Structure formats: C-alpha cells, structure tokens
C-alpha cells in the first residue's frame, strides 16, 4: 500500500539523517579524514535521493482528493515527519559546509581539534548506506571539491523546501502525534551490555544531587566490603594451613 511504502522510505530517510548528524559531529576533530569527507558526500547523495523519492510520493498522495479523512490525517503526519527530517538535514549540511571550510585537510599543517576521538566513522556510514563495508575511491582533493558540490546541493535543498512550503497545503501544527511521552523507552528492550558500561563511565555526578543513587551505592559498598572480608579470611586460612 502507498502508506507502507511511504513509511519504509521515511524510515530510511530518518536513518540517513541520524547517521549524517553523527558524521558531521566528527568533522574538524581528530577523527576527521579523507574518508570522513567521502562518507559525508555519499551519505548526502543518498539522503538527496531518498528526499526526492519521498517528496514525489507524498505530494502525489496528498494531491489526491479522493482519500478519506483518516488517510489524509495520516499522510499529513507523514508529511510533518518528512519536513522535520529535511530541516535537520539542511541545518547539518550548512554546518558541515562552515566547518569544512574552516578545517581544510590539504594544508601543510592541519589544525584538527584534539577531541579524544580516535576511531573512524566507517561503521556509521555503512549503516547509513545500508552496506556491509564502505569502499573509498575518492581522490586527494576531495575536501575542496566537495565543498563546491555542497554549496550547490544546499541551494537545491533550499529551493526544494521553498517549493514544498508553497505548494503543499498542510498545516504542521494541526498534526497530532501518535506517540506519548516516554515512547522511546518501550521498544528499546535490549539495551545490551556495552551501554551499561558506558553509563557507569559517564555518570560522574556529585553525590548531593542524586539522592536515589545513595541507597544503591551503600548496598554496593557493603557487598564489596563483605567480599573483601571473605577473601581475606580464605587467604588467612590457606596461609595458616600451608
């Protein structure tokens, strides 16, 4: 059905937008490189294609006067999803243009910011392009060439947004969300081991502000203490016996 197609395409656009944002945050830092610029370029092209496809589909659906009210409400909701995605993409593209101009790669002394990020962003880009491995085939001066392309693409996106604004009669404020607050917690059941580690590393909050954690901290400390006592007892027993 038209609606399911739309949904899958919107999901794809959403995924590409999220990955593009991750890639742009790595620009200008120590994990910046030729590869990153190329990944940005590829992700952008994919985003453009998806955007155009989405737009044609949605405008066709919305122009159709013979659909029911519920259907129309649903398409308007999808339209709002699409335009929000495009806005995020547009802002990210403009930011990447500015940062790309400020941090060129081909100068004798690069001054990329030492942010502590050392890994590469290949996996993120692979996720965006829905491929297993990324292939890099661009030439050395990609950063300056790419910026010119980027400027034209931003102009294109700008124009597209303006057209959409003018031609499609959708009131974005009239759309009601289907999800309620806290909806993001429901489907992420499998949080996984890795993120638990991340939580314990990053949360160095001062004790006064978080009272709830004090109780668990005390229990934790008590357990460690008893464990240490047990180990000491066992070692002492072994020492005495041997």
């Amino acid at each position, binding site marked *: 059905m038209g609606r399911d197609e739309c949904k899958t395409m919107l999901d794809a656009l959403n995924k590409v937008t999220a990955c593009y944002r991750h890639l742009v945050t790595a620009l200008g830092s120590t994990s910046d490189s030729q590869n990153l610029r190329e990944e940005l370029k590829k992700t952008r092209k994919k985003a453009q294609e998806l955007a155009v496809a989405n737009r044609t589909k949605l405008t066709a659906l919305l122009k159709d006067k013979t659909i029911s009210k519920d259907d129309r409400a649903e398409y308007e909701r999808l339209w709002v999803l699409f335009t929000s995605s495009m806005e995020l993409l547009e802002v990210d593209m403009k930011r990447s243009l500015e940062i790309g101009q400020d941090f060129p790669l081909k100068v004798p002394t690069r001054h990329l910011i030492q942010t502590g990020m050392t890994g590469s962003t290949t996996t993120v880009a692979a996720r965006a392009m829905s491929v297993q491995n990324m292939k890099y085939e661009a030439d050395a001066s990609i950063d300056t060439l790419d910026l010119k392309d980027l400027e034209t693409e931003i102009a294109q996106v700008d124009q597209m947004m303006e057209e959409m604004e003018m031609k499609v009669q959708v009131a974005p404020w009239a759309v*009601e969300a289907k999800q309620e607050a806290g909806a993001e917690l429901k489907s992420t059941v499998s949080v996984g081991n890795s993120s638990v580690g991340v939580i314990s590393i990053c949360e160095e909050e001062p004790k006064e502000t978080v009272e709830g954690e004090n109780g668990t901290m005390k229990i934790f400390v008590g357990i460690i203490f008893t464990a240490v006592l047990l180990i000491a007892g066992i070692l002492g027993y072994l020492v005495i016996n041997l």
Partner: protein
Amino acid sequence: MTIRSDRDHGQRYRPRMSCLKKVEAIVVQMQDPSTGVKGSDQKLNVTTIPNAIAGQDIVAWIAKHMSMDNDEAGSFGTMLVAYGYIYPLQDHKKLVLKADNSLYRFQTPYFWPVQKWKAEDMDYAIYLAKRNIRKKGSLDAYEQEEYNKLHKWLNNKWDFIVMQAKEQYHAGKARVKADRVVFDCQERAFWIVNRPPRNTHSAMDYGMDRHVDPNIEEVTDSIQCLYYVSAGLLSHLQLVQNSVARVQDGSQNRDHITPILASFHWLPKKTVDYYRRINIYTQQAIMRSRVKSSVSLGAMVKYMTTFNNHDPLLVPCLPSNPWQTDDDTYWVLNTPDVEVPTKMRVERWSFSFYELLNDPRGRADFKIFLKKEFSGENLAFWEAAEELKWGAAASMSEKASQIFKTFLAPGAPRWINIDGRTMGLTVKGLEHPHRDVLDAAQTHIFMLMKKDTFYRYLKSPVYKDIQKKALSPAPHNFSDAQLEQNMRNRRPSLSPIITYQKEQEEKAKAAAAAGPVDIKKLMANKLDRK
C-alpha cells in the same frame, strides 16, 4: 514549517556573540599538539581516552601565551569553559576552570557556539529522548521538567523526535567504545552550556536578537542608486568578479586571509560613499566646541579620586557584592527609605549637592534640616519644578498654576527669592506653560541652595548626627559551601510595584504635611507649652 527556517524575516542575529570567532582562533592554537597544551590520557574502567588536559596546564599556557597573570588566565579559562569550547570531565555541571589536576577536553567544532546558529528546541528534545533511553527513564529533575514541557509544545513533531532519537542512539552504538563515551560526554557538555540547569549562570545570556546581520559588509549605496541593483545581487556580482580575478592570477579563495585576520571582519569597501561619510564626520568634528585637556583631565582625575572608594567594580562594596555572593544585605541596607543609612552613603552626600539631592534618603535628610531652618520653600520649589519637567502632559497646566500660586505670585505662602529678571521671564512663560518653563528659575534656586544652604547643612548638627548614627557593615566572608547555599536560597526581592506604591504614599503624606504653615497655630503650640 518551523520558524527556524531561513525563509522567515524574523530577528535571529546575535550581535553580542561576535566575539566567538576570536575565541575560536585561540582555541585552535591551544589544541595544537606541538605548541598547545599538553594532553594526557584519561583512564576509565576499561578504556583509555587520549587528549585530556589538566586545568593547571591550561592556565599556565594561557598565562604564557597571552602574557597575563594567573588570576586573569583563570578567568579567561573559565570563559572558555562557560562558552563550551572546553568541557570538564569531572563535575560536569559546574562550568568553571579549576587550576588543579581536574581534567578537561576540547569540544568538537560541531558543538562550538556559533553566532548564526542557536541551539534549537527540537535538537534538545531529541537529546533528552536519547538520554531517556540511555538512563532508562530516570532523568534529572530539571531535565524531566524540560522533557514534559517540550512534549507539550512540540507535540506535533513528537513522532519525529522519537524516531530520530532511536535512530541516533542506534547509529551511535555503531562506533568504537571509546568514541561512544567521548561523544556522549561532548553532547552532554553542549547541552549543559546551552540549556543550563536551574539557578546557574550561563554565558549564553546575550541580550536581544537583531534583525540585520551585523557581519555583512555594507554594499555601496551610490552604485546601487546608479544601476538600480539590489544589495544581494550586487554582492553576488562582487563574488563573480572576485572569482574571475582569482582565475586570472591562479590564487585560491582565501589565500590572503589567515584565519585570525578573517575573524576580525574589518575590511571595508572604500567607495565614494565611504569617503563622503568621512568628510561629513570631520566637518562636524571641527565645529565642536573644545575644552583644554588639562582642564578636563584635571576634572576627571578629581572625580575619579573622589569616587574611587564608592565604585563596587574597583573596591569591594560592604558587606558583599550581591551579584557575586548572592546575599542581598547590601540592597537591604541601601533602600531609598531606610531609617539608618550606611557610612559610605552619608559620605557620598558630602561630595556635591547633586549627589545629596539625587539620593532619596539624602534629600529627606536635607528636608529635615531645612524644616529646622524654616527655609523649605527652595527645595519644595525645586521638587515641584522637577515634577513638572518629568510629569505627564495632561496635568501640566494644572501643576503650573499650582506652582505659580504657591511659589511665585507676590504674597504667595512659600514665596521664593529669585532675581527680578528670572521672575519676569518665568511668570510670562507660565501663561503658556510647557515642560521647561521653570528651567531658569529652577537652576537659580539650585545654585542658591548649593552655594549657601548646602554648606550650612554639612556643618549642621543634623548632618553630624546622621554621620554618627550611620552604620558600617562588616564585610562578609563566605566559604564555598555557604556560597552554594546562598545560590540555592535566592528569592525574588521586593516587587517594584510595592516600592512605587510606598513612594506615592510618602509623597501624599509629605504634600499634606507641607501645606502652608499656619503661624498662629505654631505660636499657639509654643505658648501652650509654657
């Protein structure tokens, strides 16, 4: 579409933030691996993350590189942290630079504050949703509040926010472990700078938004008029011209502009209009009246030496500066209607008559003195003239006739003693009263009071009495814990509506009491006492 898009013509430029480009130049130098601050590794449970810098190293580098002393370097460093160019790794909520072993790290350029781009609510909503996922529903109190607020306001986009948050979360998991930690810390630091928790100072308070981009160079008006070309088109033409020139001599786009130069935006276009403006300016400058610099500088030096101890920016004010220590004793002790003023305030009254009159408590004291001397009509006339000058236009003619009856008419109850010429001018002017009709008389009376009554006041027992009674509060000495306590106990002070009402009541009482003094009643009272 949201209002954020570039296609609206709303106010979005933030002129006060134009300093950011200059700060960026410093940060880029600071993080240079060879000449910048030396970093070390941060060892966490399983991973080590490089490029962590210690606070004392940062302060030392700034002090050396910018030729400052350590205190100033510390405050400069705190500014860098407060803007978000460097973020603390321990105690991430307090954005200050501690000059000890505490670790900091540089922020990625995407999360730097930029004059053009404001931190948007939708991004914040996405971030909060991601954090919600990570912390499994237990956000901080202020974050939870913001989350609920945003859920209400951005309700139509909530589906998108949830979808995007989940996608960004999963995309983030595709990275290496160490990078994930760094990215989380970066994002968290960015949002602490841009959406600070309750009761904290934020460096992002920048005043109002402007409609015009202050960074755009002004394009010539004359050429615009000549060719009927719009400013935007003209700047495009300029761009084309520049690129053609570059093709001709083979240079790159920004070869001649180093990053630091570019940050200053000081290259104007020299055209007919530019020189015409310079001409007008210099012509006007020649026509101005001049004072000998020895005279004016002497006056300035005298002013500065007199007021030096009264300036809270130069000398710490007693008991403590409320803006720094969050303790408002200073304001409580210095309200306009306080019973016992502070010593500094009383000292200030003796500097000049203007200071005495400006301070409401001083004026009240002066009034008491004048009442004892039975010469209150001068001050009453001066106050009435002020009221006429600053009051509403509707009541002006009424006030003017009142003033004439009370002060200026021959045989008036509170007749003031001004010379004949001024009196004639004023009376004539009062036939058609306007705001400044009493100006000449008011100045005359002011000079009279200043040259005569003021000095008598300073030698009088009234003044000496209040000098003795004045308090001198002891300076506060708050420890860090007490400062935090003060910060948490901040409460809004007395509402200005209430102060205004009190003032009005006082005025009404004074007006009733200052009616024409009935000599007979007064003498009767004195006789009675016998």
